[in-house]
């Protein structure tokens, strides 16, 4: 289910192999370790809501929705008038982005190549 959200947030995630998905999930799990139990509970609950709510509107769970409908549904959460729902979506989106762009390969794929030697590395 979480992978469906990641794919909707970062479409390039579709191209990740099993090992890369493993790395993404491990980053997300690490970031949640040590966070307050209440926050983790809220995230789990919100993830369930995201999975089941589309059933009422589209007749399918989120993970079975075609990408365009999934994106419309998430856009609805992002702009929802209820603060809690917007914040919940923001939290879920943050985890998806952390997992994808927190990987060295995810960062390199967008042209980010940091080097501790800075100027020296680029010949300045």
């Amino acid at each position, binding site marked *: 289910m979480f992978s469906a959200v990641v794919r*909707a*947030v*970062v*479409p*390039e995630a579709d191209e990740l192999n099993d090992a890369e998905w493993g790395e993404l999930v491990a*980053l997300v799990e*690490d*970031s949640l370790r*040590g*966070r*307050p139990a*209440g*926050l983790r509970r809220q995230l789990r609950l919100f993830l369930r809501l995201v999975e089941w709510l589309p059933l009422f509107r589209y007749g399918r769970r989120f993970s079975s929705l075609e990408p365009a409908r999934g*994106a419309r549904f*998430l856009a609805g959460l*992002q*702009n929802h008038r209820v*603060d*809690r729902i*917007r*914040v*919940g979506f*923001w*939290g879920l*989106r*943050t985890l*998806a*982005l*952390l997992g*994808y*762009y*927190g990987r*060295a390969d*995810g*960062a390199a794929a*967008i*042209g*980010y*190549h*940091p*080097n*501790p*030697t*800075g*100027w*020296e*590395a*680029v010949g*300045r």
Partner: protein
Amino acid sequence: MNEREYDIVIIGSGAGGGTVAQELGPLCRDGARIVVLEKGPRLRDDEFSGREVEMAQVLYEDGGGLLTADGSMTLAMGCGYGGSTTVYTGTSIAAPERVIQSWNVPGLGYEEVMRRTRKFIEQNNVHYLKEERINENNQLFVEGCRRLGYDVEQFPINVKGCRGSSLCNLGCPNQAKQGTNRVQLPRAEREGVEVVTRCEVGRLEGRTLIARVTQKPEGGKGEPSPWEPGEYRIRAKVVVACAGAVNTPALLMRSRLPTRLPRLGHGFTSHPALILVAEHERSISNFVGHPKSYYLDEFVESEGFILETCMYFPFTTAKSLRGFGAPHSDFMRAFPRLQMILVLACDHVDPSNRVTVDGDGRPVVHYRFTPEVRNALARGTLTAARIFFAAGARRVHVPAATHTTVEREDSERLEEMIDERHFRPGGVSVSAARLFVADASLFPDSIEINPYLTIMALADRVAQRIRQDAGTLLG
């Protein structure tokens, strides 16, 4: 329960704790036993990898994602040997006279704050980076501002041997940044002050601190704590709380204090900030070089915002862009062409904004975006967008607009597109023993600048008082 006894216990090792430790260090020569208790770890120099998520997990409270009570803002607070001075960019600004005057603290004059600030400007090697070292991300900000007739100022920074890694916010991998981890704490330790890392103080009970030392996680970064993992009762004659603007009030709320402190936890300000991003037609040097060289503060008094140059890492950037899916990815793939500006709102004390603790004693920050703050963020966003376009950007990402992306051809319509009504919070990076407080929780209102020099100046003042009264306090 392990027992320990000290004359002075300092809680926290950042700008406040590190400074107090240095200033009280000479008392060790007369036999005083002083310890700094730091919740986070102490890393070896070779452990600063510059990897974004990995370093954030180790050096920030909650990995840099401590959320306010309603989840609308994240707070980035350093947690480790050196506290936040290890993870900021090293920009070093003295408090403006107008701010100190407006605080109106009896006995605290601007001259005194400046005298003490100057001491740390010298000690921490604060100076201007040479012009040839300024990268294009920063140069474009200057160009844009000058074309619009704005007065840009250069940030003095506290580096020594900077190699331009641009990784300051993840802890300098070259140990160039002169935070308390490089300057004040080592001096204190040479005098005989002990520093105990991975040690979290739970509460104060009269003359006793109840603390817990945690084990180094298997495979994790940093040295193990010098004390064995476990619970500790630490007796002290003097306690100096320097755990920061969030953790010090929380610690005091968890503690049994001899006096009721009705204002405890109130007066919280945070300079809520938005990271704004623009795309240029060509690649620019952005993630090589010092990330934060210039600022624009001419709108502080009239509109309540400051603009600063900045350059963040992929995940932080991704989080700051609104939206998701293909349009979001499109901006991210332009990373080498991105210019960034940070908009900071100068928030003031508001009764809603305060620190409390939850049932487990963890700090909870309540923060409401006042209309003034929303307006300042929107006006700051508008000004930043103008600067981006004046610098030649082809499009600008604006989180507080009718459309999150404004193309150059629409730049004439910025005023009508950016409005605080479109601004959606969510993703704003924002005793019986003698007890002293020496950290940012002393600030009675917004400081409007990077606070570390002023925290050091106030910590220096607190340390002086303790030194003067050492005979009575420690006798």
